[in-house]
């Protein structure tokens, strides 16, 4: 059970944060199909930054001495850097779709093609192989929080909750949840959030009330890029052992599915990402999951193919789309370039 919950959280949190990235862009009126590309880019930047910092004496020393506090700061710093570069990368999308009024779908597709190409090109030149790894050690030895890092004896019993939430976890997971809550409140409970959302619903009306639609759309897409870039690094840190290979296994598209399934609202998105994360972790480890600890591997005995669990998120998103298309909460003006003259 502990194992299943932890695995689910590990996939659900990047999904959740990247789905929120999608919400920020779409609420401001820009369809961000480039989530996948920005994630790939963010993952690469994050891993490259970790590699650079690993040779800096402060962090190398900290790793040797086991000063985990310093390393956690490095993790946060890397998330910040990956996010910032993701935001910069997303400017390509906002420039094309806001200033040049380009087709946002094609623009997003271009970024999705550009990111893996650029990243793989650079990785091959840097590392002479298709995967960029940490210089020394791995994600677990550098960044994972274990009982021993917290100063608890390895064999000590810290209860079910402690075992689940404190042993073998990453700080990034909790930071992401915190950011998710804060940004959701900003988007739905503040003046700024209301203005941003108005640009996605009726930009002409927003403009008539003195809101700068172009600036709002830039803001929305940039926040989106930041979150997606950060989510990309969190994905690579927690599920890919801090490596980058120009691929995030379709997580960006899955996040789009989460966003649609969650009907563009934060609570539903959190639920949807947990559900999809659960499917993913079942697919990855269904044969070794022991739900209630009685030694019976129930999921393996049902005999459903792991491919089915992997397919399920997309399948149910498609079905949900068809049922909710009538009362969808999708922003009304998404995908339409803002034209002052139009009504």
């Amino acid at each position: 059970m502990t194992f299943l919950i932890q695995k689910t959280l590990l996939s659900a949190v990047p999904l959740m944060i990247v789905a929120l990235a999608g919400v920020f862009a779409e609420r401001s009126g820009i369809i961000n199909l480039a989530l996948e590309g920005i994630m790939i880019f963010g993952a690469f930047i994050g891993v490259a930054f970790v590699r650079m910092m690993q040779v800096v004496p402060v962090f190398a020393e900290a790793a040797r001495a086991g000063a985990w506090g310093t390393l956690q700061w490095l993790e946060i710093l890397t998330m910040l850097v990956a996010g910032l570069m993701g935001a910069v990368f997303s400017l390509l999308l906002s420039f094309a779709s806001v200033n040049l009024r380009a087709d946002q779908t094609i623009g997003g597709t271009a970024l999705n093609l550009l990111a893996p190409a650029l990243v793989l090109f650079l990785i091959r030149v840097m590392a002479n192989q298709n995967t960029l790894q940490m210089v020394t050690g791995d994600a677990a030895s550098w960044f994972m929080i274990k009982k021993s890092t917290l100063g608890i004896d390895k064999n000590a019993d810290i209860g079910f909750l402690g075992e689940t939430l404190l042993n073998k976890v990453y700080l990034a997971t909790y930071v992401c949840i915190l950011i998710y809550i804060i940004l959701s409140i900003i988007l739905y409970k503040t003046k700024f959030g209301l203005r941003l959302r108005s640009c996605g619903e009726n930009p002409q009306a927003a403009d008539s009330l003195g809101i700068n639609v172009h600036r709002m759309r830039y803001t929305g897409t940039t926040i989106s890029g930041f979150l997606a870039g950060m989510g990309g690094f969190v994905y690579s840190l927690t599920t890919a052992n801090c490596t980058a290979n120009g691929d995030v296994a379709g997580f960006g598209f899955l996040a789009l599915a989460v966003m649609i399934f969650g009907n563009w609202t934060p609570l539903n998105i959190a639920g949807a990402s947990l559900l999809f994360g659960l499917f993913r972790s079942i697919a990855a480890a269904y044969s070794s999951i022991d739900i209630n600890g009685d030694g019976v591997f129930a999921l393996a005995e049902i005999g459903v193919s792991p491919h089915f669990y992997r397919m399920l998120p997309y399948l149910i998103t498609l079905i949900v789309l068809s049922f909710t298309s009538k009362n969808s909460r999708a922003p009304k003006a998404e995908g339409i370039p803002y034209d002052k003259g139009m009504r």
Partner: protein
Amino acid sequence: MKDRNQKILSSLISIVIGLAVGGVLVLVVGLLNSKIGIKGAWEGVRIIFAGILSTGRDAAGNLTWGFNSSNLGNMLFRATPLIMTGLSVAVAYQTGLFNIGAPGQYLMGTMASLMIALSIPTSVVPAWIVWFLALLGGMLAGAIWGAVPGMFKALLNINEVLACIMTNWIAANLVTWMFDISNFKNMAEGTKSGYIYKTTYNGVATAKLGLDKLFPGSQINGGIVVAIIIAILVYILMNRTTFGYQLKACGANRHAARYAGISDKRNIVLSMAIAGALAGCGASLYFLSGNTEFFWSTYQSLPSIGFNGIPVALLALNNPVAVIFTGIFMAMLDIVGLQLTNLTAYNEFITDVIIAVIVYLSAFSLVIRMWLAKRGKKKAEKKTETETKAEPAEGGTKA
């Protein structure tokens, strides 16, 4: 006529900028990396622009140039599926739909045609009939997979892009699943794991039509001829028939078309089905060639040939005949990438960067065309002589 020239010019500008970005990236990386240096960087730039004519290195280590039959033949071979996926995207686009589902349709086509080609024993049925059945099966599977998002769009008014993204990933998982439980996994060659048998294991392969004598040492076969014929047929369908006109009318304005008595829903579904059939056909032509292998565990990635149909169609401005040329151009970039990997310290991913830049530019090709039109007007006021001069210069950089 003038409009057409402007369209061609805008595509050429996209291509030149794309290649230039690739060249600059190669130069910058070369200069920053002491192992490559200025000499290596210059070699990289030259290969990007003319890699198709590169014949390797001579004894002294200098790049040699000339007619390279295997490169040209492989280029035409790789162009075959790109032309088909390009046609797929173009047909949908003319009906006002963005077919981002080509990768999924391509995968379904792959699965159907490989399974048919490998399961019907050629000792009973003649190989060419099996080949033909496999091709039809691939088209049918693609058509079904294209019709699904088409129906979601027509009946439930769901954005076809979202539906296509979902069907893409469903296809990726479904194909992996089906091949996983099948017995087509290549067990005979133990060194290669994760591949499906080549169709030649069952004696099925596309006829060479003598093209292999024209381009010795390459993988070329009759598939390119089939693709060109289909492209011309699609052109006729779209521009010379009532049905094609109806499709385009739906693309121009769905509601006006319905007012004129055209069933918009039927046409949207049919357009997506045709698009899917074309993408599926591309997959069949590629994998029935007999010398290509399919990596079946594909649930984490989608085939890039499907996505590259988008730049092929966009560069051709969705004209089916122009798709032939842009498909060949994209295949040339592919070969250039291989040359870069083989001959220099760079790698093939630079060509994907070039393609991505071209897609990015075509997202606002309208802006470029408007800018061209404005410039055209200004020049017309001054006098038009400079324009005729600019044309051959652009044509020169294309090669």
